[in-house]
């Protein structure tokens, strides 16, 4: 439905402006290229299907509302020049001030001039102007926009996306554009440092994002090393594979962006990922082959008497095997092997990136999966309202232990924390406010002390004369 509406908007948005009214640099011939680049860059992911903005992007510092990037002159970017557009994308500087790096300009900085111009052409000529004024971003002190200047000095290298690897050949070059620049994959898949910058030394090694685990996508065995090119390409294009499915935010990335790329571009992404330096992730020890213990049928089939109605209707059990059978086996099979054809995946290949993958499993149990790729709508229902946190913990523990072959001891509190979706916030960021205030106080005190000392010295000297 939404993709149809977007398509209609795009068609409708092809306003034939008289040549004089077209912004300088915006070229009709580049609009289609710009549209494709916008899909690959997933601008709609933050700025909305119609690009009118307003959607909050959760960050540990606060919600940032993406701006209106339609060509509306009053509330959008209709009055921006090509140069201003380019600076926003590649330098993080908008006409009204610095952009926060929630806008991934540290990735988009890799765009070439012609790509910038194509995007500009698309947004000026191919997108319908919508009047919408998103909420202003009032991030708390000390994260004023001017504070981004020193941050950019430290962490932005213009023209070079963070972590971009050396490439060989056209395909890897194209892949690097799609992964590091447009795809800004490292915005989720790289961990962040003390000042919330992407850690280039752990580029694409995996990170927790709002309670979900964005996995290691380097070619190490603890990343995607065990995936064939074909499987990886298929996963990117459809969100589905027998080694894992795209859920949560990745599901929307697949639906909105990756599934709409050309097969050649998907192959290029795969080729580039193979070229990125391998990162090793911690992994729980796991049996080489997981053979689930044979179903203890008598244990999971507990009869109740007709008169024992409270037991029949009570639904607070914490027994993971019972919960699995009752809530999950109708799709994933009594033995966890999934359904024929594996549309409902086997749970035996639950991977084991330490506690990180437990987070994804908990999120999927709670929220389900909702992913539309073309005509195919994949849907797993959410269970958050049918199971309490302790039950989700028991269920996740059962699945990881019984089918994944790893130890798992999640508690209610763990589940609550995962579902609260807070990303780990570096201490520097969390205490930035008090720290800056302290720094200012110390500086002022220091100034005061210094000037008092100077005054004393001066008056003493005066006194000695």
């Amino acid at each position, binding site marked *: 439905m939404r993709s149809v509406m977007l398509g209609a908007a795009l068609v409708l948005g092809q306003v034939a402006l008289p040549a004089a009214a077209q912004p300088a640099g915006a070229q009709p011939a580049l609009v289609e290229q710009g549209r494709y680049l916008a899909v690959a860059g997933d601008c709609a992911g933050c700025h909305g299907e119609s690009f009118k903005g307003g959607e909050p992007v959760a960050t540990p510092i606060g919600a940032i509302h993406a701006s209106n990037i339609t060509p509306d002159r009053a509330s959008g970017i209709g009055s921006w020049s090509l140069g201003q557009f380019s600076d926003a994308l590649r330098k993080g500087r908008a006409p009204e001030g610095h952009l926060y790096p929630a806008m991934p300009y540290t990735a988009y900085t890799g765009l070439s001039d012609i790509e910038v111009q194509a995007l500009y052409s698309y947004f000026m000529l191919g997108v319908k102007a919508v009047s919408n004024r998103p909420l202003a971003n009032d991030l708390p002190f000390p994260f004023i926009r001017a504070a981004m200047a020193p941050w950019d000095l430290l962490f932005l290298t213009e023209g070079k996306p963070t972590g971009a690897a050396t490439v060989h050949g056209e395909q890897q070059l194209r892949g690097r554009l799609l992964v590091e620049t447009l795809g800004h994959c490292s915005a989720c898949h790289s961990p962040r440092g003390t000042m919330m910058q992407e850690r280039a030394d752990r580029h694409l090694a995996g990170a927790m994002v709002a309670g979900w685990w964005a996995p290691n996508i380097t070619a190490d065995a603890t990343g995607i090393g065990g995936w064939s090119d074909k499987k990886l390409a298929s996963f990117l294009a459809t969100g589905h594979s027998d080694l894992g499915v795209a859920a949560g935010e990745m599901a929307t990335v697949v639906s909105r962006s990756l599934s709409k790329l050309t097969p050649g571009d998907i192959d290029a992404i795969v080729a580039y990922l193979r070229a990125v330096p391998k990162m090793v992730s911690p992994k729980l020890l796991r049996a080489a082959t997981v053979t689930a213990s044979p179903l203890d*049928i008598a244990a999971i*089939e507990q009869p109740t008497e007709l008169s024992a109605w409270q037991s029949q209707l009570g639904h607070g059990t914490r027994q993971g095997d019972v919960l699995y059978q009752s809530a999950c086996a109708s799709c994933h099979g009594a033995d966890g092997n999934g359904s024929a054809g594996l*549309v409902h995946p086997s749970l035996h290949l639950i991977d084991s990136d330490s506690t990180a993958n437990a987070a994804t499993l908990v999120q999927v149990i709670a929220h389900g999966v909702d992913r539309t790729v073309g005509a195919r709508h994949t849907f797993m229902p959410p269970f958050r309202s049918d199971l309490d946190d302790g039950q989700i913990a028991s269920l996740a523990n059962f699945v990881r232990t019984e089918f994944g072959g790893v130890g798992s001891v999640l508690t209610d509190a763990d589940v609550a924390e995962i579902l609260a979706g807070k990303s780990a916030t570096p201490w520097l960021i969390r205490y930035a406010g008090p720290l800056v205030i302290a720094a200012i106080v110390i500086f002022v005190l220091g100034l005061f002390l210094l000037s008092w000392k100077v005054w004393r010295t001066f008056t003493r000297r005066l006194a000695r004369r």
Partner: protein
Amino acid sequence: MKQMPEPSQPLGPLTVTRRRVLQALATLVPAMGLATMPLATHALEADDAFLTASRVITGNTTLSAGIARRMMALLVVRIPEFAAKLDDLLKAFRATGGTREEMLSALKDSQVQFALAIAQPWYLGHVGTPSDFVLKDDAVFVTYLEAQSWTKIVHEVPRPTYPGADAGWWDVAPPGVDAPAMPEGIKEWTFHPGGPADIMAPDPKWKAYATAPHASIDAARRAKPGST
């Protein structure tokens, strides 16, 4: 008619308990020539005897000890002289040996009746008679996952509440079925094969066949128009 008959099966692989029993047998009864059909003797673990008998009767060598224990506890109080009859049945199986079919066909009528009394709860998954319309009856649940009626057709028809495949998987011919040719479009609900515009009057001999009393399904099969 296309389905394959269920193959006759010898007893399956030894369980741990049966291995233990065999070792005990070997010391106690050296000369019984049991090599072809390992079976627990009644003198040892009675629940293993029931499990063994159940596996022979149902032809399913994977029946679990847990459910067998549950079922035996229910049958012991419902069938008079249960232990003696079980004993007798196992003796008969031992005496005949060989395949499931060979062992079953050598049973006396009374033994067959007892074997059926064991078979029924294995096939249906409960003992007693359930009521569909009142919450009071003498039925007691035994098993669902090991209820053999569903198990016997599970290759063609998934067990209810468990998954088949993706949405809409059921419009293809079941496994093992050689589907007759049908026109393109038969899967569409708006498709209608040609034919008379409205319902025809029934052929009198088919009407007579439909309304005649038939003593059994086999009798009805024999009486079908065109069958003899």
